[in-house]
Each structure stands twice: as C-alpha cells, then as structure tokens.
C-alpha cells in the first residue's frame, strides 16, 4: 500500500475545516450570542493555522493567525461578535481557501486588504449589546495529569511549549512526576519519562485545555478534573460554558446550571468527532465488489447445500446466507451520506445572493439527515445550485414589491429532503411571484418549441423551462437568465434516472421537486428471458406485463401493435432485435414500458420475476453498445445485461425503418 501525499491529505483536511468554519460563521450570523459557535470557529481556525504551518503553508498560517486572534478576543469577551466581523471572516475564509490551493500565488495585497477589513470589524464595532453572554468571566480550577508517549520527543513533540501554553491560560502550578525515570545506565536520553501534574486556575473553558494538546491528543494520556467553579460571575454566563460533566467530580455554586446545559452541546460535539472516518470512495467500491462476490458465492453454496441431504451443511449455508445478506445491507448503508453536506453550501450561496441582489432572503432547510448515496449527492450539487439561484433571482421579488403585495419583507427559500419509497425527494420552494405561465407560453411559441395555441397541461408548460436556451428573464443578470442552467438541471436529473415536478401558484411562489433514486448502485429490476439470454428491465420503466395472445402474435406479422384498453401500443420483439436464433416460446409475453410520453411493448420469452439489481458498468470496449446501460451478476454467477429502455426503443425504430425501406 502506498502512503498518500501528505500535502493532499492536508488539503482534504483543510477543505473540511474551512467548511466547518463557514458553517460556524453562518450559524453565528443568525445568533451572534452563540458562544459554542464562536468556540467552534476559533478551534477550526486554530487547527487550520497549526496544520498549515506544519505542512509548510506559511502564508496560510500567518494569515489565519490574525483571524484566530480576532476570534480569540471575541471568545474572551473582549470584543463582541458582530455581523461585520462575520462577513469579514467569511471573506477571509475564501482567501484561506485560495492560500491552501495555490500557496505559491501572489496573495499579499489581498491578505493585507482583508486583514485591514478584519481590524476595522473588530475595533470599529460599537455594539456591546450583541454579546451579553460573554460578560463576567468565572474561574475554574482544573487538575490535569498528562503524559506523552516515550518516543514523543523523537517524533518531534516538545513538551515545553505545551506547558507554556497552559501557563498562558491562567494561574498554573506544574509539578513533574519523575518516578518513572530509569537508572542512569538504562536511560535513553531521547526518550521521555516525565509526566506532569498541573493545577490550573483559569477563566477559560475546558475546551481551551484540549486545544493546547490538539496535535498530540491521539497518542497522549490526559486526565482533566474540574475541581471547583469559583462563582464570580452572574449565572447568565454559565449556560454557554461547555463544561464536561463526566469529569466534574465536584461542583458548587453555579455549577448545576452548567451541568444541565452542557450535555446537549457537549454530546453533540463528541458524536461529531467520532463519526468521521475518512475512507477513499474507491475502497468502498472495492468492498462493494467483494461483497457482491460473496453474495454470488453464497448463492452457489445454498444451491449445493439444498441439493445435499447434509443437515449441518444446510444450517451453515443458511447462516452464511443470512450473514452475507446483512453484510450487503450494511454495505449499502456505508455509501449513504446525509444531505447536510449538500445543504450546508447553500447557506453561503443564499447569503451571497442576498448581498448581490439586495433582497432579504431567508433559507430554511429541513430533513438534512436524509441519507442518499454519495455519488448521487455529488451529482446533485450543480442542479441544486441552478435551482436555488433561479429561485433567488427570478422567483423572489424585491423587498418593495413584496411589501406592496402584502408579503413579509424577507423572501423565503425552503430547501427540504425526505425519503419516500426508494426515492429521495428534494424540494426547493420559494414564496416569490411564481412562474408566469403566459410568458413561458409566449416564449416557447416564439422560439418554436411548441406550436401556437398548442394545448398543454400546466405541468407540460412548466417542463418547458428545462429546455436548452429557454429563459423568461427579460434581463440577463450575473446570476441567471442566460438560459443555461435549467437544461443542465434536466440533463443531470435524467442521468440520475430521476424526475422533476413543478408546482407554481402566481403570486404565491413555486415549488420544484426532484425525485431521485436513493442509489445508483442498485435498482429494482424485472428479470426476463429472451432466447437463452437473461436481461434486466428497470422496474421504474415497467407499466404492466401481459401475455401476447396467439391471434395478436399471428396478426402482428404485418403490424406490430397490440390494443391495450382502447389505445394502440406498438411493440418490439426483443428476439428479433437481439437475433437470438432460437425457437420462440409458445406463449410470448409483453412487458409494457413507458419512455417519457411513449408506451412501448417489449416481447420476451419469459418473465422470471423481480430482481434486486446491483449495477456494474459496461466495459470501455462496449461503449458503442447503447442498448445496455450496464450489467449485473445473477444469483447463479451468470451475467445479465440491463436494458437502456430509451436507447432500445430508438434502436427498434431505426431497425423498423430499415425493414420498411428494404421491404
């Protein structure tokens, strides 16, 4: 196994930190008194500075240092958190990203300007009411004992600066425990044998102590006891203070309040710290392949066991079957990630869009814990950006217009996700002016998309906005209106085998829902047999199955239609299309599928049944075969191909045109 490039590792870590910082800042912007968020942002900046310096990103470390200092002052209650400060640090955060990505670039001027901005935001604010929670520090006595691993110094850790940092936190009494130092002739001078007992009286929270040890935390032993809280402060200050009840052996005075308030925030944080194990996606894919193999091997085992009379063998085989089934389910879940990640970036987008358009926009998100396959999430990001931009730019009116029509001054964008029967539904709802149907129609007629006076349902009309080059915006803004974007949405959602639904009420707003399959790795399929080959038809495309009556079969030499509840449905004989060269089964079956607006029947020899289909991509050597979207491995180890219904129908039409031309 090769070691990953440390710089790349740092970049991934930095990207995550920057995201956390941004989320913290945006939360803080909503509630300026939220001390937990101040701490979170500070910790993020601190870590970024530290690891930046460690990996040689000097410019980043120096720049981040100033932001950290600013937040440190907020944290200590010296200056209040203000909107101006949050905006300044948000901008600085973007700059940090540039520093991470192109450390060699010329960033000096930008850094200077941003820092000047930051200084103004910190010093120039005169808004003392904003930070009532920070007033009146109370002092806590902590008793610490820590020891570093024996090889710590050899690995480049110097305990002295750690002790200095502890001293900076407050009044400190440090005692070295030298009991484990060996006799002189056994002493290795580069090893570390000393442990330290520290009594620290500080106004800082427990987390400040953790910050000191942040880079050595993994290997060291650290115990912290909170001995007493000296109640110098009013009780108001206490709730925001994250104490750790687990180690608080004795509490007096205002401590009960602290203990009661802490678990919610404290537990939430520790859970967050534990839940991330960074695994490259391709390893998950590999694991998935292995699990697939196991499932296939297992089904062969069950076949063998079923055929033998050995009861012990059968019992074992059943155990293996259950275990591999569970393993497969767990594997599926591993690939699922909550949409939080996706949604969190929209808070920033909306924040920026509000500034750009001068509108007041409030974003409400819901259902962030809904889980979707990772690859789906990644591909959803672009379409959602387009939709949210579109809502902000075209959907929402300006504040004046809103007030005039009796709405609240601030526009609302509601972003929600929920699961529903194997699909995830993502809805973008705004309370703006709604889609102007007449303008959509006029525009569509003008550009020749529909015939004049064509009768369309509202849904059909709304779907027109997803056509390439379609925009009803009379002016092109920086944000949208160029007519690109919405067709990207349509294309991406189609590729994800999803659907788009639009609801709009004039004057009240519009709602766009995207329904997307939970995973790209597995679909529900209908397994059919054509000649000797077995094929999977995606169940989402299947409308119904019926038998092709002998009369229809005979008659269809001249025409290939069946009448299905008074409408004519054309059909394709897959045996002809695939040239199976075998004798057809006596009773042919028809699987009626719908591709968009069309319904087409596919004639097959046998319908085998439902099949949970694990999709494998087709090889590059088969990229010219459009009829199949992928392949899957059946229980007996054979490969079945998955039909791409849209392409199949197109292929069938071509072939028929061919036949007509020939005959």
């Amino acid at each position, binding site marked *: 196994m090769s070691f990953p490039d440390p710089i790349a590792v740092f970049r991934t870590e930095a990207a995550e930190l920057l995201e956390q910082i941004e989320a913290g800042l945006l939360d803080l912007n909503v509630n300026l008194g939220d001390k937990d968020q101040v701490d979170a942002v500070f910790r993020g900046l601190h870590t970024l500075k530290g690891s930046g310096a460690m990996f040689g990103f000097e410019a980043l470390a120096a720049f981040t240092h100033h932001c950290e200092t600013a937040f440190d002052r907020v944290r200590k209650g010296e200056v209040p958190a203000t909107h101006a400060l949050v905006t300044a640090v948000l901008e600085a955060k973007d700059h940090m990203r540039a520093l991470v990505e192109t450390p060699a670039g010329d960033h000096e001027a930008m850094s200077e300007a941003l820092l000047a901005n930051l200084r103004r935001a910190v010093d120039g604010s005169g808004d003392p009411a904003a930070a009532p929670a920070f007033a009146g520090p109370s002092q806590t006595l902590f008793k610490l004992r820590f020891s570093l691993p024996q090889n710590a110094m050899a690995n480049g850790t110097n305990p002295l600066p750690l002790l200095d940092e502890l001293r900076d936190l407050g009044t400190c009494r440090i005692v070295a425990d030298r009991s484990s130092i060996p006799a002189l002739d056994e002493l290795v001078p580069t090893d570390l044998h000393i442990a330290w007992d520290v009594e620290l009286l500080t106004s800082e929270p427990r987390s400040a102590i953790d910050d000191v040890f942040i880079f050595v935390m993994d290997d060291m032993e650290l115990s912290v006891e909170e001995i007493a809280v000296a109640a110098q402060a009013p009780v108001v200050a206490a709730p925001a203070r994250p104490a750790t009840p687990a180690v608080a052996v004795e509490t007096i005075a205002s401590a009960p309040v602290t203990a009661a308030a802490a678990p919610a925030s404290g537990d939430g944080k520790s859970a967050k710290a534990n839940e991330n194990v960074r695994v490259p996606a391709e390893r998950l894919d590999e694991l998935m392949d*292995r699990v697939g193999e196991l499932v296939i091997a297992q089904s062969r085992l069950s076949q063998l066991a079923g055929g033998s009379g050995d009861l012990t063998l059968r019992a074992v085989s059943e155990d293996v079957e259950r275990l591999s089934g569970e393993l497969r389910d767990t594997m599926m879940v591993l690939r699922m990630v909550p949409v939080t990640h996706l949604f969190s970036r929209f808070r920033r987008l909306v924040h920026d869009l509000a500034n750009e358009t001068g509108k007041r926009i409030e974003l409400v998100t819901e259902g962030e814990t809904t889980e979707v396959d990772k690859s789906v999430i990644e591909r959803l990001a672009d379409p959602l950006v387009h939709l949210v931009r579109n809502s902000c730019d075209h959907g929402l009116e300006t504040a004046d217009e809103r007030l005039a029509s009796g709405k609240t001054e601030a526009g609302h964008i509601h972003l929600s996700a929920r699961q529903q029967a194997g699909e995830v539904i993502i809805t973008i709802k705004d309370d703006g002016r709604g889609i102007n149907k007449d303008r959509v129609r006029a525009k569509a007629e003008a550009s020749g998309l529909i015939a004049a006076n064509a009768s369309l349902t509202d849904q059909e009309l709304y779907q027109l906005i997803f056509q390439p080059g379609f925009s009803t915006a009379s002016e092109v803004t920086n944000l949208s209106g160029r007519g690109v974007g919405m067709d990207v949405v349509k294309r991406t959602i189609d590729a994800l085998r999803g659907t788009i639904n639009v609801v709009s009420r004039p004057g009240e707003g519009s709602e766009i829902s995207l329904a997307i399959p939970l995973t790209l790795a597995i679909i529900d399929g209908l397994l059919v047999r054509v000649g000797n080959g077995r094929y999977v038809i995606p169940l989402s495309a299947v409308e119904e199955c019926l038998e092709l009556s002998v009369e229809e079969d005979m008659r269809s030499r001249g025409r290939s239609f069946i009448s299905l509840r008074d409408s004519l449905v054309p059909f394709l004989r897959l045996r002809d299309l695939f040239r199976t060269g075998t004798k057809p089964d006596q009773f042919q079956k028809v699987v009626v599928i719908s591709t968009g607006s069309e319904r087409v029947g596919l004639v097959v020899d046998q319908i085998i049944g439902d099949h949970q289909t694990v999709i494998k991509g087709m*090889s*590059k050597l088969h990229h010219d075969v459009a009829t199949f979207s992928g392949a899957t491995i059946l229980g007996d*180890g054979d490969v079945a191909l998955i039909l791409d219904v849209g392409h199949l129908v197109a292929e069938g039409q071509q072939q028929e045109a061919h036949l007509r031309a020939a005959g």
Partner: protein
Amino acid sequence: MNQTLKKLSEDQWQGRDELEVLTFEIAGETFALEAFIVQEILDLLPETSVPGAKAFVGAVINFRGKVIPLADIRLAFGMEATKPTIDSRIIVIEIEIDGEPVLAGIRTDKVNEVTTLLQSASEPPPSVGMRWRPDFINCLVKRGSEFIILPNLQVIFSAKHEHASAATPHG
C-alpha cells in the same frame, strides 16, 4: 510502411534485451503477452453474449464480481473458431486504452508457460506472405523452429472490425 513497423516493434522492447512473457496457443499458432499485464488465468466460464457488440468482444464474463468483456483474438486474425477443450483457458489482462486501465479476458486454446524472449531473436512482421493485418502484430520472435507472435492489443482493441457480430441489428 516497413519503417513504421520497425518502429512499432522497437516500441515493444523499449530498449530492453529481454521480455518476460506468457505464451499461449490459439488455433495452432503460438502467441505471447508480456507477463506483467496478465492478471489471472481462468478456466472457461459461462459467457453472456452482448447483442449489438463487435463480434470480437461479443460476450462478457463474471470475473470475480466484475463484468468484463471476453475478447476472441481469433476473429481479429481471421482464424477458424475451435471447439473448447480441456486445455481451454481465459487469460485476464489489464491494458491501457485511451489512458484508462481496462480489464478484458482473452479466450485461448491452451496456456503454455511464462518464458523469456530475446530481442536479438525478434523480427518485425513481414510485409508480404502474411494474411493478418500487420499493425495487429508488434513483432515475431523466433524460438527453435517456430515463431511466437506478439500481438498489439492496443491496436486490436481499438480497431474497427469489418466483420460485425451477427447480432448487430444493422449488420
């Protein structure tokens, strides 16, 4: 033409004096592939034919949970199909096509051995006296009384084959 062929065969050796190869037989001819591209040698597996694909890669197999194409170089060299025997094997190889690694199986009649070929015994494919497309062959290496063919898989896999599969609808 001889110039380019000469160059091709030099590419295969890349200045090396020796090549470690796996030799195998197809329709009575001995072929060799560089050993490092060989992933695995398998017994024959159930095949699933892909309607509409080039006959040369007309089927897929399940290679330990992966679906990979099964190539029949016979068709590239216009050889007669032979019946599977007890010696028939599939060689799974990984080659780079357009910068991407691609796994594929190659159907063979018999797998012989891993051996070393000498550059000094290699010759570019003759431009006459051969019914195969010369660009499908990297070079011929003489060993004893026979010739070992080193096929150029990159060219073979990306070439357009005139004889499309009978299953092709347009065929």
